């Protein structure tokens, strides 16, 4: 496959072209002390010269002395915020003179172009695809948005301390689903991007950036950066036998021990790019005739999640944590043929009490071996 190169300055032309073609460009941008995804209109809104520091329960954004656009890892938001929006109207109903009408409106959101999302986020989209659009029933909103979206991920050339994508097959190089995959290369003399058009590349985006075929030397520079990144992952999980182990040890006392630390705050599920659970709510107007049904992200950590008349099935912290971890690393394999975790590390960074999935899995491995 031909690899191309374009100068770093050309990002603006790319953004302008995407906008001209009718896309809303969603890219990382610094906001409130974190790099988050948001709509941008100009390359100046990218987090140029920023890097993040992540650890258990820690996230800090810092200025660097480099000019790189993509020197950070993942922030709390992921594409699911756009493809699977929370607080979104599913349909409306109207009651008049004993007649009921129910109608779902077409989603008039512009197509999204995701620029600068990470390989693990690409992978997470593929994971959500299998849940939300490839099962016996497809979610209308997700499927439509997903189908219209354009993906221009940037490979990771630096690994965060909570990252473990190499363990989960999520990165650090984009390998599937993209239209154009970029690698950022920066040194004392040069600042350019390598670009790999994906199989799905139906749009000719390379022209606007005056991309030219990359030289073997340039390609090697990019490869070296990715390989270096893969070699310095902050964390790792030995996934061998994990699915079977978690399914087997549902009664293990270690669940109790985690249950004492976990506050069931739901942070981990909200930031997780693959978590898909939702709740629905009805909103009535004052006449009581018009109802709007909305969908909100839900979490298996909520007590109400398993409510049935008489009480909740999973009424202890321990049972809810067990549900979450076991779903991600075990049940997901049975349900969708792969892990529900892509190794992005968000749940580790954003857990207020510093619970680390990689450590908990290792604890189970040690205690059950």
């Amino acid at each position, binding site marked *: 496959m031909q690899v191309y190169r374009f100068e770093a300055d050309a990002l603006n032309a790319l953004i302008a072209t995407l906008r001209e073609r009718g896309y809303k460009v969603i890219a990382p941008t610094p906001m409130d002390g974190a790099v988050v995804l948001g709509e941008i209109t100009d390359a100046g809104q990218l987090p140029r010269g920023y890097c993040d520091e992540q650890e258990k329960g820690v996230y800090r954004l810092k200025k660097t002395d480099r000019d790189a656009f993509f020197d950070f890892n993942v922030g709390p938001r992921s594409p699911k915020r756009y493809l699977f929006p929370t607080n979104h109207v*599913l*349909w409306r*109903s109207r*009651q008049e003179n*004993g*007649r*009921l*009408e*129910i*109608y*779902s409106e077409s989603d008039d959101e512009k197509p999204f172009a995701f620029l600068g999302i990470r390989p693990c986020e690409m992978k997470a989209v593929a994971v959500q695809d299998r*849940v*939300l*659009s490839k*099962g*016996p*029933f*497809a*979610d*209308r909103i997700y*499927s*439509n948005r997903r*189908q219209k979206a354009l993906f221009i991920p940037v490979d990771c050339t630096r690994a965060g301390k909570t990252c473990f994508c190499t363990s989960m097959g999520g990165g650090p190089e984009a390998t599937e689903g993209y239209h154009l995959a970029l690698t950022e290369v920066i040194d004392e003399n040069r600042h350019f991007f390598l670009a790999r058009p994906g199989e799905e590349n139906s749009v000719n985006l390379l022209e606007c950036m005056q991309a030219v075929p990359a030289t073997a030397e340039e390609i090697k520079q990019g490869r070296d950066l990715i390989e270096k990144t893969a070699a310095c992952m902050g964390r790792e999980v030995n996934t061998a036998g994990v699915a079977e182990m978690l*399914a087997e040890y*549902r*009664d293990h006392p270690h669940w109790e021990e985690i249950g004492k630390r976990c506050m069931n705050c739901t942070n981990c599920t909200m930031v997780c790019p693959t978590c*898909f*659970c*939702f*709740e*629905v709510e*009805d909103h*009535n107007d004052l006449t*009581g005739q018009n*109802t709007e049904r909305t969908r909100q992200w*839900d979490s*298996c950590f909520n007590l109400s*999640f*398993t*409510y*049935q*008349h008489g009480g909740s*099935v*999973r*009424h*202890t912290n321990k*049972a809810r944590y067990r*549900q979450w971890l076991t*779903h991600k690393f*075990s*049940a997901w394999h*049975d*349900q969708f043929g792969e892990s529900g975790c892509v190794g992005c590390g968000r749940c580790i960074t954003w857990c207020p009490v510093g619970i680390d999935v990689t450590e908990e899995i290792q604890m189970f491995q040690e205690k059950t071996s």
Partner: protein
Amino acid sequence: MITTDVLAPVVATVREIQQETQDTFTLTLETPEPFNFKPGQFNMLYIPGAGEAAVSISGDVTQPHELIHTIREVGNVTRGLVALKPGDQLGVRGPFGRPWPMDVVDGRDVLVIAGGIGLAPLRPAVLALSAKRAEIGRLTVIYGARSPEDMLYAREFLGWKDAFVARATVDTASPSWRGNMGVVTKLISPVDFDPTRVIAMICGPEIMMRFAIRSLSALGVEDDRIFLSMERNMKCAAGICGHCQYGNYFVCKDGPVFDYDQVRKLFGVKEV
């Protein structure tokens, strides 16, 4: 591009509502199109402003022009459902879920065990089994209710007694009750079926299903011939909201009917 929306109900109209017991009612609905389903499947019923509830289809599969649901009033949505009057409209989406194993019953004895409202999802199976009695072995229906007044489909049950073995038992009754008293498992008897070949279908409170399974296992009925219908919180019924998860299953799409071999391990664990 997906145009159909699995989360949006279609509108149905109430044709009839009949009181079964003090807190349970049977709704007969008319839908714009004939409503085809399989015994054991369920619908999501929607009351504007109140919300949706999963309710099994209790009608006869050969009568797709009337959609029948039997509902026990336990909360917000079910209260709205039982308050409906003929001519009222509500939302329906379905049918969802894996049905009772009607494809493996030919030539075998069938044992149906129901507790309380658990007879509602089993009624279509009983009707279908009764209609094909020539192709199956012996048919036995065992039903446990709190009291004689809490028995569903009471008149129809008398007809079942004439046609095949149908036994009921209650927890409590006034002295005038001449039937059985005590737990439903007491009525399980190998006189009615061949434990080495029988297909058992069970629905009721989890505790009752546990005891029924224990009795059947003791008689030598293998796990993969014992079928049960599970209940969990459901928001979508389409396998996408996550609520109904039960171990590695989604009750809405992998169930609600499971064979015991599939869920034996989970049955032994609390809060799954």
